[in-house]
């Protein structure tokens, strides 16, 4: 797994939670930050994956369009 690209997950999480208006208790900060760090670590595996600029990112996708047979 790639190195974590987020140097201080707790500081990041506190800043963003406040900006998003999410009431985050200090006691819960470490676990939220652990999840944020995990997300960054996992996302690093595909963030730089080469994809064409025009690839469709639509959230609702039609799996059936690829049907065969």
């Amino acid at each position, binding site marked *: 797994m790639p190195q974590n690209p987020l140097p201080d997950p707790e500081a990041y999480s506190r800043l963003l939670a406040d900006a998003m208006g*999410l009431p985050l208790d200090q006691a819960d900060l470490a676990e939220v930050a652990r*999840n944020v760090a995990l997300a960054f670590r996992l996302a690093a*595996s595909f963030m730089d994956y080469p994809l064409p600029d025009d690839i469709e990112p*639509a959230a609702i996708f039609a799996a*059936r369009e690829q*049907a065969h*047979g």
Partner: protein
Amino acid sequence: MAERDWTKAPAHAIAAAVKAGEVSALAVTEAHLARIAALNGKLGAYTDVTAERARKTAQAVDAKRASGKAPGPLAGVPFAVKNLFDVAGLATRAGSKINRDHPPAKQDATLVMRLEAADAVLLGALNMGEYAYDFTGRNVHDGPSRNPHDTARMTGGSSGGSGAAAAGGLAALTLGSDTNGSIRVPSALCGLFGLKPTFGALSRAHTFPFVASLDHLGPMARSTRDLALAFDAMAGPDAADPACWKDAPKPVLPELDRDPSGLRIAIAGGYFRAMGQAESFAAVDEAAAALGATDTVEWPEAARARAAAFIITMVEGGALHRERLKTRIGDFDPEVRDRLVAGNLLPGSMLVQAYKFRRHYCALVAKLFEQHDVFLAPATPCTAPLVEQKTFVLDGQELPVRANLGLFTQPISFAGLPVVTAPMPAPNGLPLGVQVIAAPGREDLALRVAHALEKQGVAISIVPEIT
């Protein structure tokens, strides 16, 4: 001759007997209500039992038959739904404390209406992991659902009550939802056949969502024929779900008994042959041997697919619950809350890249189906862990159970593929599941192959003695 115990009969046998007049729908319903009263305390399957509604529906089915009209294909089949489905008169709790403060649903979910239109009988709503963000079947508000094969063990989740009810004989058919594996994991751990259809094949209207771009609904039961009957009864367009196909899928039941020997079946290799305990891979090998499948094909980009599914789940799920997190953060299960909060803190470009990667991945996966019709993969990395177990060891690494029970299911649902979980016994006596995976829109092929395993006795689902 002893009277048949209808709580242990598969749905298709119940429907056939009700249609033939061998048993009334009301008698089948009463037998199930009695079993629920006796065993629900041990299994934690139901959160609401709609007994009066069930009796009225069953009486209507019996009256229909008595009047000379042909009962529907699911005549008298007792079914129950994960409590994220709207059931008129019940608050749609979705496993949460918060939603039970909502007013009762005014109408049923589309799939509930369609099953009742086929003359099935709704028995109630089922326990689930909070807001479906779960692979274990634990619920801090309602208690865990417990595995009928060993009540000290988890059902898997998040459709844990759906697994406990169908495997325990508390319903012949249950409905679950599957965003990353929530039908397939409990089906495997509870020894059930489960169908996660192609994304968009079944309407999700009037159910509580989790991840709009990954949510699927589907049936769990004790035979492939039951899945086929239920799928055909539920399929069809529904303008109320924007992801639902505009045209009805082809019925799958007429294809079920076709010999699968001409199909090109392969074992999914690479990612799907690591990070599991030996019995999970042995089950796949046994299924492959029974089907005469010898090819193993490297499945492309499964690890990245799982990572991208993880991000989409976190962000879409987090966004869905943002207002509830702002106003009622203390009412969430802490393990769910922390992931939903984290999902609100991730950058937008991360989500868009995950979506774009999904499009690329779907194209890679589509290529696999140019050479093969069906793939086999483990459903879970192990048999059911203990209810309170937090970690397990896979390939020498100690990992959290909650996040990793779905490591083999996530990359498949990420491409929206149809999958049937076929239950197989492990050497320790507990069930395991094999995923039978087909191309988008080919539920018929996944069901045919799972049915062939069932006919050979390789895949089997039984109601165990519950102690």
